[in-house]
């Protein structure tokens, strides 16, 4: 049976602002699923709290709208229970880099085969415009009316030094490129991290800013196997801002290192009569 874009639509009314970068991310994700022809039942989308959090309502696949910041642990649990599922987490920059930051380095070094997409609009949108860890220094927001006094976080550098095996940046202003990135991330075996520059049309409109600056790493012959070069590119944030795949390496995934996971998914194992007597040896 062919998977079509229409099948991926839901009855829910989309409540994002007109012009919101989330639309591009949604479109690119659906296109990626169609182009890869992944059955809907096999996909699970996890979303956190924020404007991006409605994502699961708008795509007709399995979904888990979790509490603030916990996309990665939920995704990890799902993947361990059923390794055959394609597990894709979506977070905003507040969800991922503020309240949920503690999970990123660990998911990365564990190399769990989960995809993690961060809708990075550099602002809290749903709570009407407060500063986030990626808001540039000096920017005035509702919670920093005199300008943000803090240096922003560098998400790509963080992902790289944490050991993520796929690190990329996308731009919501380029749906075709984003679609390609999603496909590459899904095809990658291991933890895939994609930070998406996603302008917030209402509270922090950066479309023009990014459109003038972004360029594609594929166009400049970037070597995605070169870790140090990737790290250098992660710090490039001036007149030129790179998008594309920064780094990719194949390493054993968390699931592959666990012999218990060989064979059928845990969720489908027979648990009706577990023989615990073999553990009695420790209790005698």
């Amino acid at each position: 049976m062919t998977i079509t874009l229409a099948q991926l639509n839901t009855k829910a009314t989309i409540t994002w602002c007109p012009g919101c970068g989330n639309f591009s991310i949604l479109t690119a994700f659906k296109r990626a699923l169609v182009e890869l022809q992944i059955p809907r039942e096999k996909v699970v989308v996890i979303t956190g709290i924020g404007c991006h959090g409605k994502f699961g309502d708008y795509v007709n696949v399995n979904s888990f709208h979790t509490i603030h910041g916990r996309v990665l642990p939920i995704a990890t649990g799902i993947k361990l229970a059923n390794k055959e599922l394609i597990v894709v987490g979506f977070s905003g920059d507040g969800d991922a880099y503020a309240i949920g930051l503690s999970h990123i380095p660990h998911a990365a070094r564990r190399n769990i085969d989960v995809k993690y997409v961060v809708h990075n609009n550099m602002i809290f949108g749903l709570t009407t415009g407060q500063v986030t860890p990626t808001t540039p220094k000096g920017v005035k927001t509702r919670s920093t009316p005199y300008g943000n006094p803090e240096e922003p976080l560098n998400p790509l550098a963080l992902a790289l030094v944490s050991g993520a095996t796929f690190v990329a940046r996308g731009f919501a202003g380029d749906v075709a490129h984003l679609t390609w990135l999603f496909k590459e991330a899904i095809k990658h075996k291991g933890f895939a991290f994609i930070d998406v520059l996603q302008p917030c049309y209402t509270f922090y409109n950066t479309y023009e800013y990014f459109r003038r600056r972004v360029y594609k790493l594929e166009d400049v012959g970037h070597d995605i196997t070169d870790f140090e070069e990737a790290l250098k590119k992660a710090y490039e944030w001036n007149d030129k801002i790179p998008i594309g795949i920064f780094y990719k390496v194949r390493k054993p995934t968390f699931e592959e290192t666990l012999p218990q996971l060989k064979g059928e998914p845990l969720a489908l194992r027979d648990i009706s009569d577990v023989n615990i007597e073999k553990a009695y040896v420790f209790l005698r």
Partner: protein
Amino acid sequence: MGSIYFTYLIGGEAGMGVAASGRMLAKTFTRGGYYVFGMIDYPSLIRGGHNFYHATVSDERIWSLHYNVDLIIALNKDTLDRHLSKLKKKGSIIVDSDIKYDKSALERQGARVFEIPLTGIVKELGALTVVRNSVALGASMALIDFDLEVLLSVIRKELGKRKEIAEINVEAAKRGYSFVVEQYGKGVQCTIRPRSDNGHLVITGNEAVALGGLRAGMKTYFAYPMTPASPVLHFLANVQFDFDVVVVQPENEIAVINMAIGAWYAGSRSMVATSGGGFALMTEAIGQAAMTEIPVVVVLAQRSGPSTGMPTYTAQGDLRFALHASQGEFPRFVIAPGDAEEAFYLTVRAFNLAEKFQVPVIILTDKHLAESHLTVPAFDLKKAKVERGKIIVGKYEGSEEYRRYKITDDGISPMAFPGTLNAIVKVNSSEHNEYGFATADAKNAEIMAKKRLRKLELMQEEVENCEESVKVYGDERSPIAIIGWGSTKGAILEALKILEAKGVNVKFVQVVFLSPFPTRRLQTILKDVRELLLVENNVTGQLGSLLREHLLRAPDEYLLKFNGRPFYPHEVVSKVLEVVK
């Protein structure tokens, strides 16, 4: 009462092998056909300080250690100073002849002192100093004329990972044994003859919970280390390949519980275990489990609080916390086993209930239950069966589109796991409609709140119809009742034995299910009770406040203890005698 009650205490610094010796002795007596309850008391440090293992052995089932001691094994002088007051008249002390202490002071107290060259023997053997404890264990076997071979078999098994280490300890135990036999003869303290080994287990509450999880078909276990729950993690990590269970230690307790919820959403029965601080971090996600209607089993092994408190000491201070953790109103089970045997069966039950009602289940233990050893018969697996909830596996056959939160008469919606053919499973921590889409619609909110409430009504019935939700021991017709929950059961049951021997007949009411609260059952059980004595390991008498809330009845007397130490039977006995008077 049993004809034999023998209490031993092994004391020394952390690192001297106190816990291992105590455990090996408990296993020795169990293999020798006796029953043991053994407690390890230790401060939160790795070297130095004072650790002691305190256990009572009996020829009938035993539920708690007794305070007064027949035999002290003193691996250092500190042990003598701290525990001499516990020694019974004519009790024995095994002491290293290398230790400087005032022997006459001990003898003035009526102690029989056995100086044994623990250090000397270890030096002769060329063994590490820690092996002193094996010499002492061997010596103790001679003092009570127990079969040395039983101890040796336990040492070989416990230390068997490295054969040469096991053998040197065996040799040390033999030397200790012969030394006593030659110097003093066999059975100077008393005679405890081994009986037949009936295959009983020596198990802690933590191990029982772990084993219960395995029996319940748990496939994923997540935990961050926290005393006193960490041994659940250690036990499961050890056997993970034998049972094909994935055991993960994530970055914090927030990740722990969210991973567990994610895993059960995808079809893998999951459990987490922690103590108060970790549970505090989990509270938000407990509400999430309730709202998304994803089952999860959370073990809360209480310790002395507030905050970091005394991490290695016991308390029952978190009852109200467990009952109310997380915002909003939702049903949950809170279950408190009273001993390790109950902990096993109730953990299996917890998994079944969690899945049947699609709610979080909290198992309340405490340090005293979680880390103490108890001799129990091998488990009856017929009484510990997996019962799956309304789950859909493989393929959804319904004619209409699958709705994760379908409105049903009982409030429970059939639960498909992602990956199920023809079913798209949408779960949502936001208020949602039947399909799982978020909505703030007023009418929907009311429908969904009522749906969750219908589960609560059903859960209440489950508890009221369950014999095990409240247990009654002793003289059921007595107008005097002790009421309690959790690990205080041990000391209370031992107290009942002592009281019965004195001709005082009271009953003990153990509340096992604390949410939903077994109101009707308790009303019946307490109907003719004139004097109600509340026993709790906390400051405020939290079960007492629940009795007032649900039964409109306050306890008449209180026995509360909140110094981090468990109740001893004699404390309960004294209080009851005071009440009876």
